[in-house]
């Protein structure tokens, strides 16, 4: 079983986004970086499948030199190998898909290609689908459930009111969502092992962009809204009511 998981280095933001002075990017001076929560579930799922059925998980990213951190994080979760397409430029979804297709071709034959449903920063929802079309593979998006056996994948896609189930022959492309599974935390030995592995780094050149980004805008929030449920012990029923609505009780 060979699974390739694509990940993207994204900032971990707090409540407030601050833009750079030229409004072209988010100010990341105080921010840490990670892979999107969808992709974390993607890596976890791939690792679980290979743990059960044998094979290998390859993690792939297109990003700056620092994105190596995210590849090592993914290997600490259990991915076996990492491919780093190195570029400092900002790539749009179309160009990204093109570069990934080329890199993935060098890994064929493979059984499963996993993407996050959308990236946590740009949220274009396109790369997984574009790659699937570029490779001529079936693609199912928005997965909350996945089972792989006998050369086929049973995919559960979340829709309002329930789930649509698709049965797809492998090789196939899936884009997954947070909630697919509960990703593990890396152990110390796993981190030390991951840090010792070599990463296959390849320089890539961005093709001429066909999209021009004008600027980023932070939408006006609704402001802080606080609803006072009550005072003292009399507020208890309203609190219980709220907890039930939220589903925590």
């Amino acid at each position, binding site marked *: 079983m060979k699974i390739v998981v694509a990940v993207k280095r994204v900032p971990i933001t707090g409540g407030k986004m601050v833009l750079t002075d030229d409004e072209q990017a988010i100010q990341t001076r*105080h921010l*840490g970086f990670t892979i999107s929560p969808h992709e974390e579930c993607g890596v976890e799922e791939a690792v679980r499948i290979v743990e059960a059925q044998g094979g290998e998980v390859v993690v792939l990213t297109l990003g700056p030199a620092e994105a190596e951190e995210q590849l090592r994080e993914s290997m600490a979760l259990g991915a076996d190998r990492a491919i780093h397409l190195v570029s400092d430029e900002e790539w749009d979804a179309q160009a990204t898909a093109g570069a990934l297709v080329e890199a993935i071709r060098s890994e064929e034959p493979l059984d499963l290609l996993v993407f996050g449903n959308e990236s946590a920063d740009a949220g274009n929802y396109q790369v997984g689908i574009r790659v699937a079309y570029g490779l001529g593979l079936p693609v199912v998006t928005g997965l909350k459930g996945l089972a792989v056996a006998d050369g086929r994948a049973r995919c559960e896609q979340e829709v309002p009111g329930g789930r649509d189930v698709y049965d797809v022959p492998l090789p196939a492309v899936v884009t997954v969502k947070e909630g697919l599974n509960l990703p593990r935390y890396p*152990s110390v030995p796993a*981190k030390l092992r991951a840090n010792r592995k070599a990463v296959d780094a390849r320089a890539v050149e961005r093709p001429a962009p066909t999209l021009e980004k004008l600027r980023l805008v932070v939408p006006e929030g609704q402001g802080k809204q606080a609803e006072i449920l009550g005072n003292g012990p009399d507020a208890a029923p309203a609190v219980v009511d709220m907890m039930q609505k939220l589903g925590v009780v």
Partner: protein
Amino acid sequence: MPEAYQWPTSARAVVIGAGIVGNSLAYHLAQLGWSDLVLIDKGPLPNPGGSTGHASNFIFPVDHSKEMTQLTLESVRQYRDAGVFTESGGIEVARTEERMQELQRRMSSARAWGIDDVSLLTPAQVKELVPYIEESVILGGFYSPSVGIVDSLRFGTIARERAQEQGALAVFANTEVLGIDVANRRVEGIRTTRGDIETDTVVVCCGVWSPKIARMAGASIPLTPAVHQMIDVGPVPHFRDTKGVIEFPIVRDMDTNMYERQDGSGLEIGSYAHRPILHDPEEIPSNEEAALSPTELPFTEKDFQQQMEDALELIPEVLNDESVGIKYAINGLLSLTPDGLPLLGETPEVKGLWSAAAVWVKEGPGVGKAVAEWMTHGESEIDLQSSDIARFYEHQKSRKHVRSRAAEGFNKTYGIVHPAEQWESNRNVRLSPFHARERELGAAFFEAAGWERPQWYESNAKLLDEFGDRVTRREAEWDARWWSPIVNAEHLAMRERAAIFDLSAFCIFDVTGPGALETVQTVSMRQMGVADGKVVYTPVLSQRGTFKSDLTVMKLGDERFRVVTGGAHGMADLKWYADHLPADGSAQITDLTSAWTTLGLWGPRARDVLAALTNDDVSHEGFPFATCRTIEIDSLRVLASRISYVGELGWELYVPIEQGARLWDLVWEAGEPHGLVPAGIGVYGTTGRLEKCYRAFAFELDADYDVVEAGMAWGRVKTPDFVGKSAHVTHRGQDPVAVLCTLTVDDHSSRDGTKRYMLGREPVLSKRGESLLDAHGRRSYVTSAGAGPSIGKHILMSYLPPENANVGEELLVEYLGERYPVTVATNDSTPVFDPENARVRS
């Protein structure tokens, strides 16, 4: 709007910062009777997002510093009282032999400060207490059963709410300070995002933000935010059955600068081993911008590689388990200062602006109480002189100095720091006019107050042959570190002929004006209404009659008194005098430290040397002891002061700083036929003064002991009023609870035959090995230690209970785990060398 939330337009005091310090301080001020207090924080409550919010929250009480240990013990008492302290025990483990010796020092310090339940453990014993430790990598451990963890956020909340319940305190969260209004160098009010408050007292308890807040008022709080990394792993199978937060002792892996503590089902692993990562107080993210909190910054994994290996080596049973995952990892921010001590007290730049910053959770409540006392009574029960924010010189407040020393000190957090250890970073800032000559003479430079001072001179190595066996060597590397036998040889040369000393580090300031006499009279214990040209050595007391300082005052005229004090505490002394200037402006203070330099000339031949240089009368009758006058040497007009800290005939010679080099050369040339030698601070600060039993501030003299106990209650109490007078009179009228004695070491032989030499702060014990305790519960410990080359003995000073303070009494001193016999030589200020003081008055 309920009254409690009404915005106050004025307040008795505003405390900025609701971390462990601000909350504790607000509570203690309320206990001391303050009302109309306001506590504000730009973050939310109960966790505004400062260092308290992510602190590791454990407390190890034993420290080599008496002050820090006292603050910690007081803090633990308060945490226990509030029901937020959980005892777990703690073990400092050693991986090296050098560390095993350091653990012995820990045992001694524990004993000296009254913590008796400690013990040294074998690796097997450590494993019994911490079953998941790998005993083969350690050599032993220092066990403190009273170590525990606290809920610092809960304590802060309890403290704050108690003050609110008393009606003394109004609290406003999510309120940011925008400015502090200052007029005539006094606080007038603050401006915030919610409105303004008129007040004359503001306390900055802002942790890593403190420098930014202080700058709004034009003051300086010299700390830097710095990272210390921590991760949390779990769930740990060993902790599955734990009830509560902690059951196993906390481990400090000293040699790797790391710690591991249980936190519920997880294990928190922290490190001070990584490269120093300093941040800027102006560039800390806001609560909204931060993903976790402003002081929980993104983890830089590459800085934790070695630490993961070290932790794995010590705790493989837990960490090799692949089901134990890393759940939390941060670069946590905390505050570091240039000398590693807190920043407490009223800022010297702005009256009414107080600092309570760079304080760890383990000292928080104690500091809150002490600073509240200081604000109320002008002094605190626990001596805070080493944390006094007034202690810094200008260059020490600079960004460069703060950052370089903080970075250097960071990796020594669990380090083995020798008592005489010198800083390496940012040296050569203050050079005396004698510096070039000293370099030519091979001076071994030590730093004090930023000044480079010769500790001894390598060119004096020839004196070792001259004095042969009379010069004691030290066999053990630790005893001989930051030391040279040349010090003892210089001492002998001085006592035989004469020596010159670089005393440029003196802090010198003039008190002038019609109100000058009133000022110095108020501050000094001794009579200042003296004739022109008189030099008075005087203690400076606190209200309760213990020591604030000791210094020398030269009366130069009815409206001019020149105060000379040691460099280490000079700036704090300057502030103390400034704070006691008359309110009518009839006296001023002028800092002359950088205007004058001082050369010390002492020894039996000192007069011969000086007489050869000047036509002025320097005979004993013509120039009496404890007087000063201007004499002419060559083309220099020199203020000569006939006093001596080394107990020899001689003078302090003061000239304008630009003439210092010339003075050195003149004295040097005149001294050659008399065998004059240059001598360092090793003699001036230790051997010379110990033989004369001269007390030193911060060693023998501090806020814990009074004048009578220190054996310095000479003559009558003067009639004019002075700070501490009534307490002092009371002390004179009662028997001292402790007596300052000088002891000599009888036998230096350790078990393996090496001769060992104490360095200071060791516990003094009875002949049967019991701790000596006075009626106030104070332990006897060595306040100063050093060689007495002229009497051929190693000298120690210590306060003893009166029943042991007898000349000839035989006691023990405990040094690095072994006991050595000592004998009381004097139980008052009678010197052990030249008891009649014949030399000084010759």
